[in-house]
């Protein structure tokens, strides 16, 4: 195995052993963390927090025009 491959293998084993030998609180925290990330990135971002300007205007020029209108109302 090349030295780079060996390094990757060592990094993989480092994380793998770390996760598999985790204590009860660590495992519980990881479950909470994964649920939280799912809620934040999938539920909230996709369904509740679209980027208003990206969603409603196709180009940066259109977005600039819209904001300019808001600034000069």
């Amino acid at each position: 195995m090349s030295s780079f491959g060996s390094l990757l293998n060592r990094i993989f084993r480092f994380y793998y052993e770390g996760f598999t030998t985790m204590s009860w609180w660590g495992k519980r925290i990881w479950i909470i963390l994964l649920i939280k990330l799912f809620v934040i990135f999938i539920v909230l971002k996709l369904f509740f927090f679209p980027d208003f300007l990206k969603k409603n205007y196709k180009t940066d020029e259109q977005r600039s025009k819209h904001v300019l209108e808001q600034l000069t109302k």
Partner: protein
Amino acid sequence: MFENVDLSLVNWSRAQFALTAIYHWLFVPLTLGLSFILAIMETVYVRTGDEEWKRMTKFWMTLFGINFAIGVATGLILEFEFGTNWSNYSWFVGDIFGAPLAIEGILAFFLESTFVAVMFFGWNKVSKKAHLVSTWLVAVGASLSALWILVANGWMQNPVGMVFNPETARNEMVNFWEVLFNEVSVTKFLHSISSGFLLGSMFVVSISAYYLLKNREILLAKRSILVAGIFGFLSSLLVVYTGDISARALASAQPVKFAAFEALYEGKEKAGLVAVGLLKESDRKIGEKAVNDFVFRIEIPGFLSVMTGGSTDTFVPGIIDLINGNPERGLLSVSEKMERGRKARDLLIEFKEARKSNDTEKAEGIAALFRDKKFNDEYFRYFGYASLNKPEDAIPGVKVAFYTFHVMVMLGMLFILEFFLAIVLLFRGTLRKNRWFLWLVLFSILLPYVAGELGWMLAEMGRQPWIIQDLMPVTTAVTNVNVGSVITTFILFAVLFTVLLIAEVSIMIRQIKIGPKH
């Protein structure tokens, strides 16, 4: 403009952002403070080889890990809100925010995936020194991560180092160093991280007090109080010092906020600092807004002038001077600022019209004016005032600013006393006998959280109506979305964050009850 805006939308959008920020700040300061305490404890372990210090480090690291994991990514929701609920603001500041937030994102990612992993998984896999370096890098990296967020926030309080480009309707960074070393950002960063150090120290001292009250883990508790007591005492002094320089920066960048947190209406020399006071609304008014008078106050004579300019002869402008103007002191009235802001806005309207009618020469001439320093200093810096209806719209909630500031300062004084007493009693060997003191510090565990949140309320509510000082009021910044959807997400956040907080507290309490491994 205010009458054209749905104020319930503005208020709900602000409430939603405030809720998210308040919850986020419950997790951040403990990470900032506890990480340094861990690093100090582990350094002692590596230098002495004493296994008890390793056991202590591992125990506090467990609590650090719970807080870190539950809190991580809660700040990202604030960025979602920028894009959805504050899109005008987000676009207007885009280039200034882009750089610091990108640096923060990259730093946080590498920090979390590399050094935090070594800290938790690497005890028997890397050398003692490599592990210690990782722990220190987590501590330093967490504070550096906070730096970039506070640079962005500092720019909102005191916008510098940019020019407005009417072509793109965005501010563009022209001087990175001016943005980075913005006086408000630097002082805000130092004040925020030192308050985090204080909070982490109080957390350790309080839980150690719990063990002493329970008569268990005596050595761990005493050594923890030794480290956190000294670190907390030094941090609490640093909080006072950075609060002082922060106030001085505010006095020049946000004088209305500065006057509001002292409820100072009439400017004067030899202005006193109110130590304690109670406000009530009087019959006097500035425009339509009532002036608050003191029911009673205890004042430190001349101290506010000293805080502002280093001498009792320094004139501290009051709210009335700042709203009505004071030509003798070179203070423009808000009416004059509104006039100047409107000139800048009219020019922007002319630019828009010129572009529509393809009058390139005129449009380029106006765009060049927006890059001109004199025009910026005299007109564009007051751009936001064009959106105000009445001069008194520029006054923040004086009672909120006054009480948040004074309760925060009183708590700060209490923390100094508690850390000092903890060290004295520990060195005298009478800490365990003074059970009243152990109960006091145990119940003080939540007080630094209260102080930190009050500090943020002062910073953000005290600068109303601005989202970007003098350039953009919150009413212009908000996205015109359905208020019902904002209320829905507000409730969603309240539920999500409360569940996370309950999870954190319950897992932590369980770990504290179990105690360190033997």
